[in-house]
């Protein structure tokens, strides 16, 4: 059965019916944009089930060389900016029309590219062009992407050009070009069909409980998921939970050009607990003991690997067997959060494996 639409939700929730306000559009627009269910009470300090889930419309998917980009949109909703360990809640404004989202991934390795730089330019039916530099964001349905609430103009066709500068994140194996890429899309902005997008108001007994809603089936877009511990591409030293996130630590002496003779590559994969989305833009460090002494005390560097995906890693100079790795998350993932993730992944403690 089809999920109920947002229109149905609005009609049920609002004291003002759609038809009754036909002559009062300005008012109506303000009303509808801000009519998000309230935040669950007593949100836990961990990933939690949000107040609602929403469908989204895919405007298109384009490729350029080895990179692919998907543009999608849904109705505007609140999110949280992150700086250090502080969050700054962004509420929907009356003039916001959509929440625009861009996902970028590498088609050759199938890895999503956190830390890309994305700029969106949209031209509406009135010929007006505006630009948005979306925030890097994490949502339970989509994982790592770039998004923002955006005020469009009149309803009608929008041409959207997305400029992506691939990240300079360290890569294992081959190097990939980081020249800017342009992706062109167009979509029809139509309030009525936006309101017909699926919308589910999560019941009070479920919302706000530890957990997460399922990732949506993104069809063509790859979700930013980390490899599971039981299918990790390199030998796993151990796993842990910290700050509400899962941490998998692996070590290998065979790691392309990164680890040479008498060297070990130590990789830490930090991800969300339920949906296994990678948590980028954090700072991690580690100490490593081997052969009875500390052989490493330093940063784990964000790194993209075709098999490990986005992870934090370091080369440790020691041929001896590793006895202990202690990983610290020094700065929480600096990525904006959709509802359900804004209280999690801030307060980390060290994990020893």
């Amino acid at each position, binding site marked *: 059965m089809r999920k109920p639409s947002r229109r149905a939700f609005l009609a049920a929730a609002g004291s003002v019916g759609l038809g009754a306000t036909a002559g009062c559009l300005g008012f109506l627009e303000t009303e509808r944009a801000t009519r998000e269910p309230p935040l669950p009470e007593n949100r836990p300090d961990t990933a939690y089930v949000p107040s609602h889930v929403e469908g989204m419309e895919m405007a298109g998917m384009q490729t350029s060389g080895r990179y692919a980009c998907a543009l999608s949109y849904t109705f505007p909703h609140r999110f949280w900016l992150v*700086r*250090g360990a502080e969050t700054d809640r962004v509420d929907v*404004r009356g003039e916001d029309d959509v929440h625009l989202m861009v996902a970028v991934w590498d088609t050759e390795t199938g890895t999503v590219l956190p830390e890309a*730089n994305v700029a969106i330019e949209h031209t509406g039916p009135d010929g007006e062009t505006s*630009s948005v530099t979306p*925030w890097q964001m994490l949502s339970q349905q989509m994982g790592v992407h770039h998004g923002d609430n955006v005020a469009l103009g009149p309803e009608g066709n929008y041409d959207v050009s997305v400029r992506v*500068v691939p990240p300079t994140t360290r890569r294992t194996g081959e190097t990939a070009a980081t020249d*800017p890429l342009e992706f062109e899309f167009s979509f029809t902005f139509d309030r009525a069909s936006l309101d017909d997008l699926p919308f589910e108001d999560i019941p009070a007994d479920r919302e706000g409980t530890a957990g997460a809603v399922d990732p949506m089936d993104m069809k063509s877009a790859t979700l930013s998921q980390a490899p599971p511990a039981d299918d990790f591409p390199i030998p796993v030293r151990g796993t842990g939970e910290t700050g509400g996130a899962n941490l998998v630590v692996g070590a290998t002496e065979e790691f392309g050009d990164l680890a040479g003779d008498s060297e070990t590559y130590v990789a830490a994969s930090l991800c969300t607990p339920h949906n296994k989305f990678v948590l980028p833009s954090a*700072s991690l460090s580690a100490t490593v003991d081997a052969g009875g002494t500390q052989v490493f005390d330093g940063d784990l560097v964000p790194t993209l690997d075709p098999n490990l995906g986005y992870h934090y890693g370091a080369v440790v100079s020691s041929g001896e067997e590793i006895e202990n790795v202690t990983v610290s998350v020094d700065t929480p993932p600096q990525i904006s959060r959709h509802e359900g993730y804004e209280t999690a992944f801030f307060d980390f403690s060290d994990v020893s494996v």
Partner: protein
Amino acid sequence: MLPDSRGVSRRAFLKSAVAIGGASALAACMDREDADVPTGVDEPASLPEHQHAWNDALSRDDAGNVVPPRHHALVHLEFDGEPTDEARGTVESALRTLERAYEWSNNGLLATLGYSPAYFERFDSALPESVHLPEPQPLSDLEDPALDTPDAILHLASDHASGVLEAEEAMRGNRDTANGVDVDAALTDVFSVADRRSGFVGDGLPAEHQDTGGVPDSEPVPEDAPFYMGFESGFEKSQATEDRVTIQSGPFAGGTTQHVSHIDLNLTQWYEQDDRESRVAQMFCPAHADSGAVEGTGENLGDSPQLDDCGDPVETGSERGVVGHSQKFQRVREDGRPVILRRDFDSTDGGHAGVHFLALQREIADFERTRDAMNATDVSGQTPVGRTQNNGIRQYLSVTHRGNYLLPPRSNRALPTPEGSDA
């Protein structure tokens, strides 16, 4: 005269007039402004040899900071002729007209004429070692600016919108008199106009011009802010001195180089999503946000943004996930001060809130080095700070144009050769 019933405030109108430009804007503007603009001098020798010697001719605020002229125009000029003595004479006589017509001050008119690398290409010889003037180029992987290559650029600045407009009209050959003084020659007698840009800076002007692209409808720009982003800028101790930016030797000794970029501002996130603390952290540094060092637009800071307690950008970036715009430049200070002299102003050109980022420095390399510090690839490479996100104010800026120019000393300003004009 335009009716007031259109709801345009008198002050708002004056600025818009500079943005519109031309004879009718000038006529309407003069009616409105009704300014008594002081006239200049007959003898250019009484004026400073540096075209860029503006600071002594400008007023200062109570803390001793230079207050920039409120209205600005940048006129791009193409030169298709031969740099003959006659052409030089015409240029010199046009510029002397401005000097006779307007006092060299914010109350009268301040002007500079600069030349691009494209201009110097016509000569067989190259510019001397003492001048570093490369072609403009993108200064970050993340930008894709149009590269401005007019032959020359005229910068006009005054507290009077009518002063800027009238001087421009005179230089375009559209007036017989300027401020009551006969116009002997126009720059368009030898140049043609390729483009014009305009802008404003000073308390209240950005707020009056916030009904434009890139600014949300809530009119968030503070009433008393001198710049769109809401803070004071150009504190005395955060600027290079005019001496520091002056070329020391060679035929252009006494001149300087000018970098002019245009930057679109995207202020929706800045004002509607970031809170005040984040704005202070991103503009100055997180330590300033913690201590509440910045009140309102930051006038309380006096003559310095007081960045001493900001700390090392890489450390701040690792600990706080954000690094301040001003903080990043500490690394490129020399003798305790920046090496560029910023004379930037805001603009509504292109129907969008923006900045004409005009900076003077002894060599363009000084600007490039400073801009590199702002890119802060070491911070984004070693900390969770992004290349734009949480990286000072980079998230909100997009560079649309860049141009590099040489401002010769006053005595050398008319169609110079690479060896100076008496070659």
